[in-house]
């Protein structure tokens, strides 16, 4: 592999983020007010965002890195996610006396890993990005060092994550053995010749990828870690994890399956279809019985992975566009719901029972209304963004002939309305138990709420901009 200086242009955003994050790590030693670290890391995210939007299109480092609109779209999702997380974290951790500078730097590194995943053109760079993301997130999940649940979450996530990495590596080695390359373009070319179609080893390799990516996006039956980790991790980290790694998983899933394994469409899409139905079933049905809001949202995020899988299963550019669209919408609505929980958190004593929402419309009408928006959006009720997301997913699936899976998704959506609207019912139709006191009124969390709520409404009313952006970005996929 030859190193050319001109290749650097394609990874300029990642480079900037990596260098700045490391500088911040050093600078943090002398920064006493961790708020400054937070704002500086937010500035780094902003700068990276600016450079991401103007990065040239092309491949670099002998095909290791692919810089295209598809990658850019996902990078924007990751960066938005990171920015929102930074904004909600300060108040949460300072209330628990656990605000440390490393937190923000780990967040940046995790995001860097996701960005590398999104623009990986080679299974090796993909793996590298994935591990950078995963290792940083394991630490983040256990960031409340004195909290036993947080520790448990971290260790669980780490052990199972390592297990799933083994699957991924095994899959990569099988593919390398079959095709002699780890480059996605090369794999697509080899498989396209049709000589190894139906080879059991190829099928086994595909399954390995399904398992590894399924783990990252929390698709059943590889989702078992998610509820425990989401519940145990600090809430801002849960919000971060439920959006970022999931979106990154989908970003590489479409690259590997829809682009590299295009010739094996029938095979992997049948496997993913079973996974999707199982995921929607498990996520929605388990969410019904939850009394802890974080756990309910954990299962809800599993269910949403099931919906987004539908776009990949379609195997078309339209399907991928719908999946991307959904990821962006999901980022806003899911993060928004978590931000509400963070805002209502009573000084570190925890706000996580569903009962805490009782009568919220009386005590905090504004917050209650915003939560209502997120719940409607998650349930897919128009005119919120969630409806738009589902609509395009279902359209793509119907157009590619997967009617049965749309029927299943519609049924599970109906079931999901029960537990989302239960929150609304508690907020609006029940009398408040007690006054919910918020000693701190973190402005930064309110900003996040305003941004996410506005996005949910505006995308719901004016979907065209996002839809055509996703469609244009997905045009790198054929079909």
């Amino acid at each position, binding site marked *: 592999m030859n190193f050319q200086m001109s290749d650097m242009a394609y990874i300029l955003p990642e480079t900037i983020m990596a260098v700045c994050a490391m500088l911040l790590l050093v600078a943090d030693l002398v920064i006493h007010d961790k708020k400054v670290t937070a704002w500086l890391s937010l500035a780094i995210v902003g700068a990276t965002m600016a450079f991401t939007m103007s990065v040239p299109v092309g491949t670099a480092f002998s095909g290791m890195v692919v810089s295209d609109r598809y990658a850019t779209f996902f990078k924007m999702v990751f960066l938005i996610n990171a920015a929102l997380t930074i904004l909600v974290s300060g108040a949460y951790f300072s209330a628990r006396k656990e605000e440390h500078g490393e937190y923000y730097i780990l967040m940046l590194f995790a995001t860097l890993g996701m960005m590398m995943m999104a623009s990986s053109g080679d299974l090796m760079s993909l793996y590298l990005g994935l591990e950078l993301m995963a290792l940083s997130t394991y630490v983040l999940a256990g960031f409340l060092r004195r909290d036993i649940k947080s520790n448990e979450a971290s260790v669980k996530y780490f052990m199972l994550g390592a297990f799933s990495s083994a699957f991924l590596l095994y899959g990569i080695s099988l593919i390398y053995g079959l095709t002699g390359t780890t480059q996605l373009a090369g794999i697509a070319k080899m498989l396209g010749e049709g000589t190894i179609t*139906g080879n059991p080893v190829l099928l086994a390799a595909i399954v390995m990828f399904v398992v590894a990516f399924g*783990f990252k996006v929390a698709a059943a039956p590889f989702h078992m870690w998610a509820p425990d980790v989401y519940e145990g991790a600090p809430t801002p980290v849960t919000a971060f994890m439920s959006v970022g790694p999931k979106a990154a998983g989908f970003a590489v899933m479409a690259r590997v399956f829809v682009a590299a394994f295009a010739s094996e469409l029938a095979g992997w899409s049948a496997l993913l279809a079973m996974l999707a139905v199982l995921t929607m079933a498990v996520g929605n*049905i388990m969410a019904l019985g939850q009394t802890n809001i974080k756990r309910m949202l954990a299962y809800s995020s599993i269910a949403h992975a099931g919906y987004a899988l539908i776009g990949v299963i379609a195997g078309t550019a339209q399907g991928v566009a719908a999946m991307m669209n959904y990821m962006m919408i999901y980022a806003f609505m899911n993060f928004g719901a978590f931000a509400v929980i963070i805002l209502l958190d009573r000084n570190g004593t925890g706000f996580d029972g569903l009962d805490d929402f009782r009568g919220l419309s009386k005590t905090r009408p504004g917050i209650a209304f915003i939560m209502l928006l997120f719940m409607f959006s998650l349930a897919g009720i128009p005119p919120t963004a969630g409806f738009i997301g589902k609509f395009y997913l279902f359209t793509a699936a119907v*157009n590619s002939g997967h009617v049965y899976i749309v029927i299943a998704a519609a049924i599970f959506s109906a079931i999901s309305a029960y537990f989302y609207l239960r929150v609304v019912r508690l907020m609006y139709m029940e009398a408040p138990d007690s006054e919910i006191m918020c000693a701190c009124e973190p402005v930064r969390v309110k900003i996040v709420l305003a941004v996410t709520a506005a996005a949910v409404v505006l995308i719901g009313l004016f979907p065209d901009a996002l839809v055509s952006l996703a469609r244009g970005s997905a045009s790198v996929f054929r079909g």
Partner: protein
Amino acid sequence: MGITATHMLIPGLPLLAFLINGLFGARVIKEKAHWIATLAVAGSWLLSVLTVMDVLGGKTYYGDVYRFLTSGSLQLAVGFCIDQLTVVMLVVVTTVSTLVHIYSIGYMHGESGYWRFYSYLSLFTFSMLMLVMSNNFLQLYFGWEAVGVCSYLLIGFYYNKESAAIAGKKAFIVNRFGDFGFALGLFLVFINFGSLDYRTVFAALQNWQSPVLHIAGFDIDRITLIALLLFCGAVGKSAQFPLHVWLPDAMEGPTPVSALIHAATMVTAGVFLLARCNPIFNMSHSAMMVVAITGAFTALFAATIALVQTDIKRVIAYSTISQLGYMVLACGVGAYSAGIFHLYTHAFFKALLFLGAGSVIHAVHDQDIRNMGGLYRHMKTTAITFWIASLSISGFPLLAGFFSKDEILWLTYASHGSLGKVLWMVGTLVALLTAFYSFRLIFLTFHGQFRGGHEKEHHLHESPSVMTIPLIILCVGSVAAGWVGLPPALGFENHFAHFLMPVVGHPEAHGSHGEELMVMLLSIAVGLAGIGAAWMLYGKKSDIPDRMAAALNGVPYRWLQNKYYVDEFYDAVIVRPVIWVAKNVLLPVTDGAIIEGIVNGVPKSIGWFGEKLRSLQTGVVHHYATIMATGAFALVVLALALMGGR
């Protein structure tokens, strides 16, 4: 040309007023609700007038302003089409609506739910404007259903009065029948033309061979089916036979509502639909025939019932149904511009009649004309305007109703074939009946002796000027509105028909000026004869009506009084069986066994399933790892089983 902010504000202002009154009416605005609503609708009126000027100058506007979803060829969009037909409707809707808003300040004064009344009125005005300004079928349907909802809410405005609540329900349910057909028609339009946009659909009609369908032994070409299904919607909304039964009961609503919704605007939506979809109807001769016959029959049918009704509002309600029949008849013979012309003049004199009736009810606190009489002495403005409106509806020469009704009768006479002649004869007979029942009402209400008792007579008074000024304005309209469409037979040019021609075309008239004059003179003659007969029977003191009622107290009189027993027929054939089925079949079987079984069974089985799943969620890491490994193994087996053999 494209749509501008001016056009968007026309429906936008009433919507804003609705939101403000709806959100803050109960607590903040209360008795001042009329300010917001009236100013908003007056603003719409002003903008409509400006738009009319524009369109008179030859400009039309067309375009989408907001696109919600695009999926394949399905587009969900909000768009406006501002053409000649639309601006006529804009004028009618905003003028009458503004006057009714002003009138209601006096009429509804002190009612509980005053703000609610005004927010409903604003919502109605918004919906009606969206309906007439739409550039696609979906928005038309949205407006259509929204005005239906407003109608329901306003009929049942006095919701603690049982008859009002029932009437609202009836209006809504009867309209379901028509709207069901309408919706099917829209589906067919979309299936056949791949679009719901007016321009696209009407352009596709140009070179379209309608396939013939075989339905239940009949051959019917698809365009006829589409036209008839769309007409179903019109039959419901415009209260044509056999779905007319809801309109008389709708009189339970406050009288200004009857004037606005159930006389001048909403009920004419069906006629508007026919005119708007004229390219579709023009392609099907048989559908047109059905439309024309339905219209003529309804006109006659309702006019005969109006002869014997004793409730002042019900007489006018049946008169409305009858006049709507005229408009539908006009559309059925291809004379869309005549139909719209009558719609436009009718809006003035019929709104005036209702508001006048409201003024009377306001004074007498009774709706039964047998308890009235001699009101002329006490309320001159109301009486005089009522007189002029009645002359107008009776086709008295030079008044608005004369020109529009005459144009319909002439173009019916001049349409193809002998059917036209038969329909014309029916129409002329209806003109006679119209004059008769209108003046029966006048003589019984305003002349002779007051029959409501001495006590009441002392309290009779003219209504406040906030109510009489709208009457006077409408009265001017009832006189002069027709002068924009003078008949060519008298040497004029029909500006109105000429104006609408780009949208609805103009039918060929088969006949000479001489024949046209003959038709005109005959309609004048029957009108005067009707007035004269009413005077003979009710104007002079006479016992002829009672003796006639006694003599005919068999089939004709009792049948008329009971409105041909249509309600009773529906009750026996539809309502009772449906309720029987609901009670004896649906409740125990479908609801009890099936739905409750599912409703209770599904959560139970989901709960069971969830229980099993939850037992897997142990929290122990190596259990989770085992499940992952099992899943992976299962996937490998599945993959090999499904795909391995290729």
